[in-house]
């Protein structure tokens, strides 16, 4: 079992999915139990993978490879390095919590869990895959389930939001696919094996003329997933309309797949393209941070605030990517993890509140802390984390990105810091209007999370956030060698001039 640990991560939830199909739709408790176990087991395995990964050795470990489509060099190829072993841990935590907080779903329960599990399996597969084709294949697996989940179990203008989100993401994916195919053809290796392509390109880099147009295809394509400005408008609307579990998964994990893909395929394989294009990305990143932050200031709906906030914080990830140095990239990976946990926690809390109040409008809420002390406290912590207060995981991550960018983009870094202040303003405003102050009479019947099981997802997410914030070296040691490999591989190569 140890040898095929990564395959088991994919297989166990797939078995759960098969069981869900067999259970009659009326048997809700059994459906819930199966789904919970199907999310729990890969979560436990992902902890196992995190521990089993030897970060002193670096490189890809636990590799499994089976040829799949021989003429094109496509293979079922799994493996982890420091980066994706951390990201599947993130996915494990968030998906488990997303299943736990789905208890209140009463309508079409069977379909709900089936679609949720398909999304989760696709995400696990995409993060674990070392084959470019299968990365894309599994990354797109979530498209239809997410569309249906928003359109069926969502709120507000759910159909519009679902369609917008899906079309934006599909446009990005198609651009990225064209870029990836061009990359495959340009390498001339007839394989989608990431490791082989990487080793080959390290010695024979692609001509700069190809890198110059393939790089932006991939970065814009996956950048849309990462809410790169100006392609971000799908996210606030989509997250606001989505059911809580999908908001958590998408804002927490699926979105990060864009950054992951940019690291793996763009930075690693096309360093000269990166040198040419990344300054532009850095500027867009600042627009992301400041513009989306300012928009968040004007919002009155809790989920919209979180949605714009999440777009704004993706700006730090983009800025970190644009640094092209180890500390920046470490910050990026760390922030992907930290922000993923934070976003999942915040969306889960808002979901908990709005399920009882049926509104997320700050003007109509108020004083909720009196009825929901536990939830309000958790929300306060999430807000502090998001604003980059030391002690939470976001702080070391964002500080590393800023340190990384200071050398190259001094003015931009100063602008980026202002984003943290903006975050603090809108987040504290949300706390003040929503949770503090006098309680309105209509909220006197609200109840807090009472049972340990109801509290578990919030406690779990918060604990991880604090643990990573207080003990950052736990994660940094884990990812350091992997990010270093990517950055150093870049510097070791000849510059753009010498290959012309």
């Amino acid at each position: 079992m140890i040898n095929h640990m990564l395959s088991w991560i994919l297989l166990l939830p797939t078995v759960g999915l098969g069981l869900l199909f067999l259970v009659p739709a009326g048997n809700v408790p059994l459906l819930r139990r199966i789904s919970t176990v199907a999310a729990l087991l890969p979560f436990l395995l992902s902890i196992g993978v995190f521990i089993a990964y030897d970060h002193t050795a670096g490189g890809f470990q636990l590799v499994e490879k089976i040829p799949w489509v021989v003429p094109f060099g496509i293979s079922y190829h799994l493996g982890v390095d420091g980066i994706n072993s951390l990201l599947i841990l993130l996915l494990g935590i968030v998906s488990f919590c997303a299943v736990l907080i789905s208890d209140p779903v009463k309508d079409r329960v069977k379909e709900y869990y089936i679609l949720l599990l398909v999304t989760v399996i696709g995400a696990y597969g995409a993060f674990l895959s070392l084959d470019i084709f299968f990365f894309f294949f599994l990354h797109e697996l979530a498209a239809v389930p997410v569309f249906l989940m928003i359109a069926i179990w969502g709120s507000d203008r759910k159909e519009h939001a679902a369609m917008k989100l899906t079309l934006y993401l599909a446009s990005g994916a198609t651009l990225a696919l064209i870029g990836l195919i061009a990359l495959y053809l340009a390498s001339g290796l007839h394989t989608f094996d990431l490791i082989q392509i990487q080793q080959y390109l390290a010695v024979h880099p692609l001509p700069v003329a190809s890198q110059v147009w393939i790089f932006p295809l991939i970065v814009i394509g996956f950048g849309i997933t990462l809410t790169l400005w100006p392609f971000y408008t799908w996210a606030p609307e989509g997250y606001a309309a989505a059911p809580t579990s999908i908001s958590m998964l998408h804002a927490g994990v699926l979105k990060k797949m864009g950054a992951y893909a940019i690291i793996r395929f763009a930075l690693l394989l096309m360093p000269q393209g990166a040198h040419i294009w990344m300054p532009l990305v850095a500027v867009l990143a600042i627009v992301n941070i400041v513009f989306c932050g300012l928009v968040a200031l004007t919002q009155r709906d809790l989920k919209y605030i979180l949605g714009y906030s999440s777009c704004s914080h993706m700006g730090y990830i983009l800025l970190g990517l644009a640094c092209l140095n180890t500390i920046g990239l470490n910050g990026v990976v760390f922030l992907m993890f930290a922000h993923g946990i934070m976003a999942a926690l915040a969306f889960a809390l808002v979901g908990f509140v709005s399920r009882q109040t049926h509104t997320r409008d700050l003007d109509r809420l108020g004083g909720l802390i009196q009825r929901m002390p536990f939830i309000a406290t958790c929300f306060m912590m999430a807000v502090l984390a998001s604003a980059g207060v030391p002690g939470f995981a976001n702080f070391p991550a964002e500080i590393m990105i800023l340190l990384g960018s200071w050398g190259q983009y001094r003015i931009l870094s100063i602008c980026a810091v202002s984003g943290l202040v903006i975050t603090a303003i809108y987040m504290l405003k949300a706390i003040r209007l929503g949770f503090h102050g006098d309680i309105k009479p209509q909220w006197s019947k609200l109840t807090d999370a009472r049972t340990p099981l109801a509290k578990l997802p919030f406690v779990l997410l918060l604990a991880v956030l604090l643990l990573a914030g207080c003990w950052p070296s736990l994660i940094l040691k884990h990812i350091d060698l992997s990010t270093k490999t990517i950055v150093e591989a870049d510097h070791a190569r000849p510059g753009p001039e010498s290959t012309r």
Partner: protein
Amino acid sequence: MFPIIAWHLISLELLMTFVLVSLILAAIFLPKDTLDDWIGLLSFLALSGLIVFWSGQDHLSGMTFNGMFVMDSLAWFFKEIFLLAMAFVLVMVRQYSKSLGRRRNEFYLLLWLSLIGMCFIASSADFLLMFIALEILTISLYVMTAYLKSDKLSIEAGMKYLILGSLASGFFLYGMSLLYGAAHSTHFEAIQHFSATHSMTMMTLFALVLIFSTVGFKIAAVPFHMWVPDVYQGAPTPVTALLSVGSKAAGFVILIRLFLGVFAPWQSQLSLMLAIIAALTMTYGNLVAMSQTNIKRFMGYSSISHAGYMLMGAAAGTVLGVSGINFYLLGYLFTTMAAFLVIVVFSMATNSDEIQDYAGLSKRSGVLAFTLLMALVSLAGLPPLAGFFGKFILLMAVIDRGYLWLALVAGVNIVISLYYYLMIAKRIYVDLPRNASPIPVSPDMRLVLGAAVIGIVTIGIVQGPFLNAAMTAVKGMFLLHP
């Protein structure tokens, strides 16, 4: 002196003709009241037998009838597609029988005739045989399209198809005669020799355009697509399914044989024209499909756009591109048939082909809703279904050929198509039904729907064997230009 004929090469066509004649005889002797069901059953049994038989014949290769008839890997592959398509159509006809009225045994005979026509098209190595085979297919389709004698739309469809179809046949003959004037032969080998040794002149270009217009008519490429929406809507649904898979595949086998085999030396001059037609076809089909309210008409426009995607493979003109067409057709076969099976069952139960009546289908029949969802998602080209890998190969082929713009146009189109396919998915899964009465689906129909879905998923996930079959079909092709 009689030429030596290699009968085994033509065994499939012989067997099918034998089945056809036996069915005609059976129609004379069987009791009249149960005749239609008997013919349907016998047809299905015979076809199943032929599919099993043909699956084992992939080694056949050679020419016969003085080089008029060729049996190669490409012909084998396409005949397999025709047989599978016909199997689905027969199931549909059985479901649809209520609308076809009495004496529908003739309908089965026409289906067999069209199948024979398609198989001969795949094996033609001479323009004369190709023309005759094309006419056998098309004339039986004319009759079947207008089969609902009391339905105005069906008569209109038959008439339109007949007029435009005869025009296309006329173009084909004209192009053929011009080519004969240039190359002094109707045989493919001689014409390929001619195209390899001569450069393209105005006359040959004109001939090629005329011949392409016929192919474009068959595959429903812009600007030869005018007949599609009305005919798709008016024809009996099984015939629509046959048109959108069988007849389209027949068009593509002609396209591959002629434009990527016989005229391959001129491919570089034709490539840009094909690329532009591909871009126009997919864009037109997608844009117009968006506003359709009738599902058969909708499938018509959708089928135009898919012809556009497949034409990308022809524009690339490489082994990869042609394999892409083959693979795409295989996936398209299962996907489209799944959709039409649902349409037939739905229209028999509700008497409606309007898209708005599909609202809340998931509450009325889970099986139908799920099958249609899978078909739509596969048509949209999302993983893990068959449509994705087909588009993937075709995109790869055009980027490889250097048509990045065509890949980007296709990308835009994929997103547009995703919009309207998802609109229908939304309708069946999210909207509330106006009439919530459940739609019964018989167990054998469930089996066939299940088979179609399994086909879509299997081709989408285990792509290797199907890709190999698609590539082998090209690599072993008669007259493959190096």
